């Protein structure tokens, strides 16, 4: 007979968990791992949420969106598919509260540890407070007013909690980021083994983003300038010389990175890229087999000419029928793969990617031609391609960047523009270095154009779109700029476009209809299950 008092042998319990130093670090690592998630029911694939959110915006389209967070059904705006009952809404909401609970659990218990020492515990608390603030921030972006939870709730407390006005939540987030910045070291003061943890600079950069999203332009600019001017205190950040180097798996924690999601080959990887890239990239080279997230024509058109001109501006030299991708912002080629793109594969060999239907020289190359089984839009992604993944796989150890130095420059530019303070001096410190690094050489592209404010803000926003495409920021941007109904509404006859590969390459591909109703879609609905179980929660307007 076996004893009846059986206890698990592979788990710590409340009594002994926190005393073990490794456990304290593991509990904090869990908080980090939950920073971005919610894409798919039951899954916490941060990479999936990170990338597929692009399909909520005008940058991308996802043809088969089951199991990847249903961005297509949400952007359809159909009441049948985007409503308070759908899983995506429930998991988006729930996953950040899971993160918040982990952070609260850590903050309430870490003092039980008596061996780590006050200094280290202070730093770790700063990390947890940053992460909790970040989760709250993401919640406010999706849902507006949300319950502000700052302790480990009991089920009974959870069932009666009410929403806190967004302004108050934002106030709390800002004060927490201040506290975190005070508790955290600058990145140079971290031991090498701790690279990837949030730092003083990260807390301040996140604060700048929160201020930017809430239109607090002067405060935002002040934080950006603090980061730009007090690098000795906040950490030294600089643009990478080469654009693609920013994302390289062999160039992690580079000078441009402020905060990122940590991965490592082979133990902690993401593999979504198999659904993003071309299907044939040369003999023996790794190629995608599904094309489930494709860049839109709209994104491609947003990249300027080498003269710094919008392609539709008179004199831009742009011809949509003849070499439309030539003479363009070099970041276009670092971001998307277009017809006749010269691809350098994971074996180091070059291969022309033929996407225009009927142009491939042989059956092998034909695999990349636009169509229902290849790219549906006529484009593939390039950014975040990891040639160092093990041969034959897309199992990548690249970190996914949450904030990088370019964004600080763009925030400064945007805030200053909104304040009416954009001038050549600001331009030369923000947009110009980004364009230089991108590879623009002509003065018309590099120098301050001296336009009116309205046009200037469009330029700054466009710069942000091109620089940060595929980095999971566009959906937030079009909402906070209140341009979502303009860029997301695609009614029948005016579908989201792909490349001009339809009807014998005479018309743009029509991808999908979309509806964005500004009366309700700026905020996601509070999920039904939470409304049903917590009578003090109220639904967002329009839902």
């Amino acid at each position, binding site marked *: 007979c076996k004893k009846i008092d059986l206890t698990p042998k592979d788990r710590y319990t409340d009594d002994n968990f926190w005393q073990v130093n490794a456990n304290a670090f593991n509990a904090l690592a869990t908080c980090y791992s939950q920073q971005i998630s919610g894409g798919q029911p039951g899954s916490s694939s941060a990479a999936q949420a990170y990338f597929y959110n692009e399909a909520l915006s005008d940058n991308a389209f996802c043809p088969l969106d089951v199991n990847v967070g249903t961005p297509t059904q949400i952007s359809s705006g159909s009441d049948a*598919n985007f409503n308070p009952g759908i899983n995506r809404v429930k998991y988006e909401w729930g996953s950040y509260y899971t993160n918040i609970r982990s952070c609260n659990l850590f903050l309430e218990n870490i003092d039980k540890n008596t061996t780590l020492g006050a200094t280290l515990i202070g730093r770790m608390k700063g990390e947890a407070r940053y992460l909790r603030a970040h989760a709250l921030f993401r919640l406010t972006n999706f849902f507006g007013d949300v319950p502000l939870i700052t302790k480990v709730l009991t089920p009974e407390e959870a069932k009666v909690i009410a929403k806190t006005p967004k302004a108050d939540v934002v106030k709390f987030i800002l004060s927490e980021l201040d506290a975190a910045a005070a508790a955290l070291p600058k990145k140079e003061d971290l031991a090498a083994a701790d690279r990837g943890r949030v730092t003083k600079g990260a807390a301040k950069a996140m604060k700048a983003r929160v201020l930017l999203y809430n239109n607090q332009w002067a405060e935002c600019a002040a934080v950006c300038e603090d980061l730009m001017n007090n690098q000795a205190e906040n950490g030294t950040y600089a643009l990478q010389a080469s654009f693609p180097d920013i994302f390289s798996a062999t160039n992690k924690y580079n000078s441009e990175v402020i905060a990122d999601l940590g991965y490592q080959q082979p133990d902690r990887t993401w593999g979504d890229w198999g659904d993003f890239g071309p299907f044939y990239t040369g003999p023996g080279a790794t190629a995608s087999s599904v094309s489930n997230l494709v860049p839109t024509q709209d994104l491609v058109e947003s990249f300027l000419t080498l003269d710094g001109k919008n392609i539709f501006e008179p004199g831009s030299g742009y011809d949509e029928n003849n070499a439309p991708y030539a003479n363009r912002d070099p970041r276009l080629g670092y971001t998307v793969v277009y017809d006749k793109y010269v691809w350098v594969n994971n074996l180091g060999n070059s291969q022309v990617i033929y996407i225009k239907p009927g142009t491939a020289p042989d059956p092998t190359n034909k695999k990349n031609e636009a169509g229902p089984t290849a790219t549906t839009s006529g484009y593939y992604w390039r950014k975040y391609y990891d040639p160092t993944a093990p041969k034959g796989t897309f199992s990548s150890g690249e970190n996914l960047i949450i904030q990088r130095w370019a964004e600080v420059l763009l925030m400064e530019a945007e805030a200053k523009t909104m304040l009416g303070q954009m001038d050549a001096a600001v331009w030369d410190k923000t947009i110009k270095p980004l364009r230089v690094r991108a590879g623009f050489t002509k003065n018309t592209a590099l120098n301050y154009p001296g336009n009116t404010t309205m046009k200037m803000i469009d330029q700054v926003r466009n710069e942000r779109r091109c620089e940060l495409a595929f980095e999971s920021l566009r959906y937030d941007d079009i909402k906070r700029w209140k341009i979502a109904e303009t860029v997301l509404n695609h009614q029948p006859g005016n579908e989201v476009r792909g490349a001009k590969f339809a009807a014998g390459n005479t018309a743009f591909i029509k*991808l999908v209809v979309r509806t964005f109703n500004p009366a309700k879609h700026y905020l996601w609905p509070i999920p*039904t299950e939470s409304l049903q179980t917590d009578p003090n929660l109220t639904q967002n307007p329009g839902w």
Partner: protein
Amino acid sequence: SNKFSLMLKWTIILTFALCIKVSAKSYSQNVKINVDLKNMPLREVFSVLEKKGSIRILFSEQDMPDKLVTLKADSIPVIDVLEKAITNLNLKLKVYDNGLIAVAPIVAAAKITVKGVVSDPQGVLPGVSITVKGTKEVTISDANGKFSINAESNSILVFTSIGYEPLEVPVDGKTTLNVTMQPSNKNLNEVVVIGYGTARKVSLTGAVDRVSGSQAVDGRPVTGAIQALQGESPNLIIQQRGWSPSAGGSYNINIRGTGTTGNNDPLIVIDGIIGGDINTLNPSDIDNISVLKDAGSAAIYGSRSANGVILVTTKKGKLGTKPSIAYNGIYGTQVPHFTFHPVGAYENALDKNMSMANSGKPPQYTDQQLADIKAKGDGDWRLETIMHNAPQTNQNLTISGGSPTNTYLMSFGYFDQRNYLERSLINGTYGLRRFNFRLNQTAILGNFSTGWNLTYAKIQYNEPFNDVVGDVLRAPLTDSFQDAQGRYITGFVPSNPLDLLRNGGFQFTNNDEINGSFNVAYSITPAFKIRAVFGGTVKANTQLQRQVELDYYPTGQSNQSRQTANYNTKSLATNTNLIAEYTKNFGKHYLNVLVGLANESYTSEGNGIRKSLTDSLLGIPTTGTIIDPGNTNNGSYNSLSNTIETSLNSYFGRVSYAFANKYFLDGTFRGDASSNFPKNKRWGFFPSIGGSWRLSEEEFMSNYKEKVGDLRVRANYGVLGSQNVNAYQFISSFNTNANVYAFNNTATAGATRNLANAGLTWEKAATLDIGADATFFNGQLTLGADYFNKITRDILAPRQDVPTLFGSGFPSYNVSKVQDRGWEVKITYATRGTFAQNFSFSISDAKSKLLAFSYGQTENVFQREEFEFVRRVGYPITVYQGYKTAGLYQSQAEVDSYPRFANYTTGLGPGDWKFVDKNHDGKIDAQDKFVLGDPFPRYTFGFNYNAAYKGFDLTIFIQGVLKRSALIRGELIEPYHFSNYGGTIYDSNSDFWTPQNTNAKYPRLAENGTVANNNDYRTGSDMYLFNAAYGRLKNVQIGYSLPVGLLSKISVKKARVYFTAQNILTISPLKFTDPEGTEFGNNLDNTVGANSPRGYPVPVFYGMGLDMTF
């Protein structure tokens, strides 16, 4: 455990109390005397003993031998002294109650040959077993009922035959004996196995159904015991979710429907050992199965009986029988039944262009391409190319027999079911093999009786590494698997299923199981027995996975990570029972008391290792090979994080009382302490009480009994339990998960806290059962009927009443309450004689209703793809919810005037769905959803027909479900499923709207992302709802048994050859997929996904069989 030892003490005290003999009748024969006699004649000895012992001895003077007796006794009962005196004198004693003792000579009778004919009221009776009572002499009546046997002239012949009353006839010196046997009153004498014992069926107060192994298994090419049981007992509901050969089978099995939102698996008990694996059991070894359906019969299994109990008894040898060798074998072919087909390549291309045109898009195929497709014809990218007829065989050999004190049975079984799929070139054909060996022995040693069972089972299951069926279905028929040069090509689908099957690797499962059980019983007195049963099962399960990298033409690869993995699990289950049983008849009173103690312990541990980038030919580590990290479910793991231990201590008992074979009362109880619950919630007590009344035995019913037959009513009520939770949920703990994040390009572990429920305890099901059994027409027709009402409360499930903003999942809580009500009827009708027929029909219903959901929360909607599954108080456990279609728009005017989803201001047209505006508010929104249906089977039925005529026999078995709804999605319903996932239309969805086909079943074609497609296909509506009722001809057998007379010349007792066919006909409104398929497993948790069937086609089996007994 204090409580447990207290129980132990009480049981020991009770045992001793029952041991003390209270009967001390004092006859004079027991008077103790002293004698010392030397060489005294026998007559004088008798008179000495008569005097000293106050007895009277009767004897006949001339029968007494002239022998002198020497005798010495010191305080010995006089009867024993007398016994000693006549030792070796060929004399015997007979003692009468009044103290008289008769002494007479032992007379040897002459041996004679007795011949005769056995018949029943309708004719001669072959196959009757005739034994000379008290000897090993035995024979069997031949085809004409004739027999011949050697017996002493004063002996008694015993005639036995299944279905007849045993008959004892004294020979009385006659050499010819013609006997007529009477069909047995089955209800009176049929014995059924019940918990920890057996009972006459007539005395049952609970709902116990007996299924004979021979009826369920003989001649049927069943893949396992569960498949054999489908349709055999009313409300034993078995759904075969999938048909592909597999180690465990894909079944939902429940008794009386779904009574809980948790697991509905019944408890399996094999030869008294709880928790046996019915999947590894050789179906041919089954003697009979008892299905315990209600509280009265199941409560003695306490904490795990809430879903009913299936008791399996295996075959044993018979005492005093010659060795018998039985062989039975079936060999045949499984033919895949393809229920849907893609339309031709050219038609498909035309339709695709129509879909594009309907969506305002340019055509997919130019006229030139269309012409090319037409000229080229259809390719072979279809299921028919990769699936072939596959053989299946069942082979069994059984050797059994027994001496007067020992029995033995040895059986060997071999089962081999090949998969339809194209064979692997690196690991042979895909399919399942099962090897079974069994040794059952019993022995009687004085007052001890013992039994040993030893079984060994080996399961070998070879399956493809990649599941390819989905990819075969997606592509249009323009594609072929290979080009003219034999290269494996990729077309619509980026991989090649044929290459994957042949060369892409495999998963090979190789499981071994050894099960041993030992029982010993000791009769302290004829009425009082104690027994101990000990059983142990060791399982060693292994799986090897190989993934081989493939390169296709012109592009594409599969299995680039080249994994080779080994997974091992080892488990030990032990089961110890100590039981005391007292049985006594007092005049018309009958009493049976049973008490017992039990422990069950289980330990399983597993480890696994997965290596990637192994050698592409051999799978061995090579340059670049890495070990995949991982947690318990994949990758590599150690046994430390994959060990499960559980333990259960129990006491139990039953009191059965009967009066005059008319009134019966049963009471049972069980107390269980489970390691799955916290100390103060650990013990559960599960009682039941039941009674039955044989009305037909009453005086006032004598007329009824004579003219109609038996009638009995019964009822019982009790509380059953379920402890179906994962271990350790009452302890709050931390999981350490490897590799959740990385700092400094180094992976780090994470830790998450598991919430505990310190109040976790049993799920309890209170069950009322009312039943009646009746016979008609002299027992030829029997009828059994039951009504039940079961309320299960404290159902174990994670809480659903807390908003997700709580931030953590929940362990199991005792949350829900479900009512499960229904009825079952079983009718059998048998005719005897030269054309014997047997009909058996059963039908049953079980309907669940959610009474309480989760701490006051009354509903939960879980979205699955386009569908909603709803748990709502007042409805069955889970129901489908969605919109109702109201026909297709036939004109733009109709589109403009009809309510619709608010954002579809443009884009809808003729051929799109209208939806019912439930609340008449002029628009379609979430308020217009209906409950669409119940996905669980209702009105399940089984029909069995057997007929025999002059050696020929026929069996027909039909099984089905009369009511069930199924929501089915996927490429078989939506043309060009999601436009880029599905590339074809099937005959199942080709009836779509066009201006020429306005009375269509499905809407017009439209590409993914259009308003029309969103409205028609992305909306969960009753378009996806199907009636999944069905009736299936499960088995037909036509057999011929060779005449016994002919066979006896070659020492063969029985030989039967037969044709057998399985699943040859299915009638259902749902035609394009198997109507048995379901998205729900037996554990009705809400993690289930929507049903997109693309399964393994139902096998239609045709084969031949041979049964021989030597």
